[in-house]
């Protein structure tokens, strides 16, 4: 009996099929044409042709953030692969599982500076969870299976697989074997928290008088929001989310005290600063949260739960470290609370909530409407209202990102999609496209600005080809708003290269790509025109909103200060 033989290119596609991949986001080129040929000859996986490889990575990323399924990118060697680098780094910083298949020149040419040769494994080494070179075509299926396993377990992250041309060509064939139940002796991520640490953590939580639960993207990644909500309600503790953790608990939950950190709410940062115990769940004490680490919450006992041991005690020393999957650990914490028959300390809680409510009453997340000029915050509020708070909101990077985080309370995890760690301008539109492909019947918004949107504007063409009617809401302030804000605050208003001259007519631009363009100039037409934009379901709408260019994002942590030292208005410190 003769076994069926496959080319490497066929093996790639077959392996992806075996791993239940539905979409590949990519762009063809010389070294991967055999894979494209194999894709052409099957119907199980759909290939989405972007207009720039960076967008392919962000689109895969957005798809993953919306669904939880691993996104797959296919790029050719050389420039195709290097164009993926920003997207890989974006996924890496936010722990997003992704598999990037990159072409490579034939094995015998590697190192000769061949046409479109780049050492992409080398280029991407600092920004991947792992990477693979293929040396034998029979290895391809299991390498791809391993790549998925590594990308999607433990602390998730991107994995690069480099496929030399000679592994893919029709002349070379081999047998196909794939082991989808991957086991590796060198990689066994911890799953459950150590029981001793759980006991210690609960003992500390029970004795706390001013507990704050501080959660991050880990809750979203682990789909742990139900357990988290249960735990928070059980403890009746205040909870704050990082930028990445928004939606981990409903933004309208009474225990939610807002986002913390640089542009977090005053009540969240004050609560952190005054806490006696901080329960950190799937968050990493990023510098955009802590502000000056030397002044960070000096009186708090810190319980830090994270799947990645390197995140623990990296910037802030954890008194009680717990390594494990956050959903499992939360369950363990609740089981332990049961075991000790926990009842909350009502008196301490009342005092704590009274204090927090006083901070809340200062309404740090607020702005002053200004007649005719459209305030960017207003736009986000209107978006929230029109979409019933149910949209997928995919953000670019800058002021609009912070306004969206502050003024659109997310009911569910995965609703808020943004590049938090790397802060990648140009992320928003392709990420929104990825979310839209997964959820075609939901509102998917790309909230962006006149700076960010131009970093991947070419994807408007992809949107037309694949019918991806996202709603782009651009808070157009004719400048790089966040840069300008820092220049106002720190550089005495010297607006060095932060003014966007020669902006295109975005309405005409959208139209030339075959979409609908709407411009909003005045506050009084905001509601109607936005409503109109969201009522157009079958076509992409680009809403160009001319907002007040002088607006700053507040509150804002004072540089080098403690976590709760904040500017609440221009020139006003809390």
């Amino acid at each position: 009996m003769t076994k069926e033989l496959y080319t490497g290119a066929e093996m790639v596609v077959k392996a992806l099929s075996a791993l239940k991949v539905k979409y590949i986001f990519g762009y063809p080129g010389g070294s991967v044409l055999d894979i494209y040929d194999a894709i052409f000859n099957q119907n199980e996986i759909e290939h989405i042709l972007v207009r720039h490889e960076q967008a392919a990575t962000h689109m895969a990323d957005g798809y993953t953030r919306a669904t939880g399924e691993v996104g797959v990118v296919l790029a050719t060697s050389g420039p195709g692969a290097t164009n993926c680098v920003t997207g890989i780094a974006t996924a890496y910083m936010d722990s997003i599982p992704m598999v990037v298949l990159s072409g490579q020149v034939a094995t015998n040419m590697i190192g000769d500076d061949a046409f479109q040769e780049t050492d992409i494994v080398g280029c991407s080494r600092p920004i991947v969870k792992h990477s693979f070179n293929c040396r034998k075509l029979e290895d391809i299926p299991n390498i791809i299976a391993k790549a998925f396993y590594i990308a999607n377990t433990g602390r998730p992250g991107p994995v690069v697989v480099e496929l030399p041309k000679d592994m893919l060509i029709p002349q070379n064939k081999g047998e196909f074997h794939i082991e989808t139940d991957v086991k590796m002796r060198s990689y066994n991520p911890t799953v459950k928290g150590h029981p001793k640490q759980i006991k210690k953590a609960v003992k500390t939580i029970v004795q706390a008088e001013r507990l704050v639960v501080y959660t991050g993207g880990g809750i979203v990644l682990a789909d742990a929001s139900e357990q988290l909500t249960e735990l928070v309600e059980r403890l009746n503790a205040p909870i704050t989310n990082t930028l990445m953790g928004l939606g981990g608990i409903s933004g309208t939950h009474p225990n939610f005290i807002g986002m913390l950190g640089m542009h977090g709410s005053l009540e969240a940062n004050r609560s952190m600063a005054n806490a006696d115990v901080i329960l950190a769940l799937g968050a990493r004490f990023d510098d955009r949260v802590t502000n000056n680490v030397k002044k960070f919450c000096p009186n708090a006992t810190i319980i830090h739960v994270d799947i990645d041991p390197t995140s623990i005690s990296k910037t802030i020393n954890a008194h009680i470290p717990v390594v494990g999957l956050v959903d499992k650990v939360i369950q363990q914490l609740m089981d332990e609370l049961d075991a000790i028959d926990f009842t909350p300390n009502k008196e301490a809680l009342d005092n704590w909530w009274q204090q927090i409510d006083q901070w809340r009453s200062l309404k740090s997340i607020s702005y002053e409407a200004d007649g005719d000029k459209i305030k960017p915050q207003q736009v986000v509020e209107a978006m929230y209202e029109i979409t019933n708070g149910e949209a997928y909101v995919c953000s670019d990077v800058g002021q609009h990102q912070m306004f969206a985080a502050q003024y659109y309370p997310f009911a569910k995890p995965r609703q808020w999609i943004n590049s938090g760690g790397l802060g990648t301008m140009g992320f928003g539109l392709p990420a929104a496209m990825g979310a839209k492909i997964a959820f075609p019947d939901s509102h998917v918004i790309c909230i962006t600005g006149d700076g960010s949107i131009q970093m991947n504007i070419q994807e408007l063409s992809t949107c037309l080809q694949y019918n991806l009617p996202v709603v782009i809401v651009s808070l157009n302030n004719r400048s790089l708003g966040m840069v300008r804000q820092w220049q106002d605050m720190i550089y005495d208003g010297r607006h060095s290269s932060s003014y966007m001259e020669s902006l295109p007519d975005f309405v005409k631009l959208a139209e030339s790509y075959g979409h609908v363009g709407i411009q909003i100039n005045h506050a009084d037409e905001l509601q109607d025109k936005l409503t109109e934009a969201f009522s157009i379901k079958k076509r992409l709408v680009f809403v160009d909103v001319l907002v007040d260019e002088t607006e700053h994002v507040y509150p804002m942590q004072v540089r080098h200060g403690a976590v709760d030292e904040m500017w609440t208005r221009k020139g006003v410190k809390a």
Partner: protein
Amino acid sequence: MRRILAILLENEPGSLSRIVGLFSQRAFNIESLTVAPTEDPSLSRITIATVGDDRVLEQIIKQVNKLIDVIKITDLTERKHVERELLLIKLLAMNDKSRTEVKRITDIFRGSIIDIGKQVYTVQVTGDADKLNAFIDAMSNETEIIEAVRSGCVGIARGEKALRI
């Protein structure tokens, strides 16, 4: 503080570069690094001498452990261990006096002369870093050092404790 880390990892292409890349990416020090396959050719063992305070060392160990190819890492300096380094050194030995001196110092340090040329002796010495430094100092007072190469240290825990899978 100087630490010696022993790392057991998959003997895969690129696994060494991941270790080296990690050290430079995160601004950790490498004083010396040695690597070779173990008795099991699917595994490599790396010994790294590094310098850092407790916090940095904790991060180094965690970050190295996080690399997918790494199976185990241990800080040998935490407990009793043996540490050795090999030195090959080429010394000017032009006349009887310097030849005698080179021979004498080599004997004192329990080294051996492994090659001779018309005007040079090549000496091999093993020991910990301090001993090799002392040897180099002693020699430089007596004659000219033409060339020296050090292997970087390797280490192993004393007693039953072992780094294996």
